[in-house]
């Protein structure tokens, strides 16, 4: 079991009962542990802050060479593990490389106006650190339903007014259009766009089974509904079975068929 805790900014991984605070240099790192370490970084700045903190160095005087090497090491590991590496990490890698090379260029006499190539990065790191700290503070502010509780909905002896919303069908249509548009973005999810009567029947059957437990298959059909009704009911039952919402049971061939709640 791999677990991880984030306490006061400290990263610790417990893997197979052992606490891993660092990525050991030569040891094989179990991929799951590495994944956990990497996934908790909020981005390249977060990773850099972690590396800086780990080295116990001053943020305003980052030794750019070792930090860059370590950073690149992490990135390589991520890539070897074929993580979906956000491009932001790569952008930072090239920024670091650029700073490194600018630091290596020997200075001439006019270094007076020469800005420290690290200055911008340091500024960003400090800015990010500031908000990171603030977000931890915000997390500790007493908040509703965790620390404070509103005295809520104590209905007086008042006749409850009909507080039904007024919605018309047009609004429903519009809302559904919105959803459909949205659903295209979440393309993995396909909205059932047909056979509403089947869906309705599914709910009905499920409700009956939920209230009565086991029911007879045959009782789901009514003659009055005719052929179409029977088909709808049958399709609904098949769909319910397919979605694992009910079980069909039959004790022996040709005996009564029953529908019942799914037994796990």
């Amino acid at each position: 079991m791999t677990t991880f805790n984030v306490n006061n900014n400290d990263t610790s991984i417990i893997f197979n009962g052992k606490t891993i605070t660092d990525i050991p240099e030569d040891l094989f790192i179990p991929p799951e542990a590495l994944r956990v370490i990497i996934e908790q970084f909020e981005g390249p700045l977060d990773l850099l802050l972690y590396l800086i903190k780990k080295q116990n160095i001053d943020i305003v005087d980052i030794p750019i060479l070792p930090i860059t090497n370590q950073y690149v090491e992490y990135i390589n590991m991520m890539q070897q593990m074929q993580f979906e590496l956000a491009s932001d990490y790569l952008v930072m890698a090239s920024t670091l490389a650029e700073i490194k090379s600018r630091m290596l260029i020997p200075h001439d006499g006019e270094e007076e106006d020469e800005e420290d190539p690290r200055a911008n990065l340091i500024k960003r790191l400090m800015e990010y650190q500031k908000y990171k700290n603030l977000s931890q503070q915000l997390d500790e502010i007493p908040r509703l339903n965790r620390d404070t509780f509103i005295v809520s909905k104590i209905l007086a002896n008042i006749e409850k007014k009909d507080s039904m919303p007024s919605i018309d069908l047009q609004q429903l249509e519009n809302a559904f259009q919105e959803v459909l548009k949205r659903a295209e973005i979440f393309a993995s999810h396909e909205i059932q766009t047909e056979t509403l009567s089947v869906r309705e029947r599914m709910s009905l059957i499920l409700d009956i089974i939920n209230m009565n437990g086991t029911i007879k298959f045959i009782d789901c059909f009514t003659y009055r509904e005719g052929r179409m009704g029977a088909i709808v009911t049958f399709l609904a039952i098949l769909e319910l079975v397919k979605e694992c919402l009910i079980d069909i049971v039959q004790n022996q061939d040709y005996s009564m068929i029953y529908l019942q709640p799914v037994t796990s």
Partner: protein
Amino acid sequence: MNHAKPLNLIIEGALLASENPLSLQDIANLFDENKPSKNEIKKAIDALNNNYKNHSFEIINVASGFRMQVKKGYDNWISKLNKQSSTRYSKAFLETLVIIAYKQPVTRGDIEEIRGVAVNPQIIRNLIEFEWIKVVGHKETPGKPELLATTKKFLDYFNLKSLSDLPPPSELELEA
């Protein structure tokens, strides 16, 4: 950690914060240690009610337990509150409703997946309160999530005879 609050104040706070009436058992269950007996809880509630002489609320005993409510005689002022807060229904509300209508029976997870945002529990609660939707079962997946479906009352409200009278989504798709 127990900060040793008096029993009656814990009960008072719980009744105030709870949305539903609390049975004696519910109240006892709030305690990990020093669980009070039902008798002790009853006595504490009596004591509280005695203290509420100079307050606008009281604890009453209804079918499913005890609940705190405003005393009679305040409806003149308070009924104005509820009027203000009703009839403002968000896009989130409509979309949630519409997904339940078209995709039923659905779990909250299904709704989240389609809308891409967490389901607001208040919306589900409202819909159930209006009796527009109800729980028709539980899905046999981890957590046994509730399966939600629309009711007859929902159809009545929109003057529909059945769900198939809802605008067919295929047409909507063309317009969208």
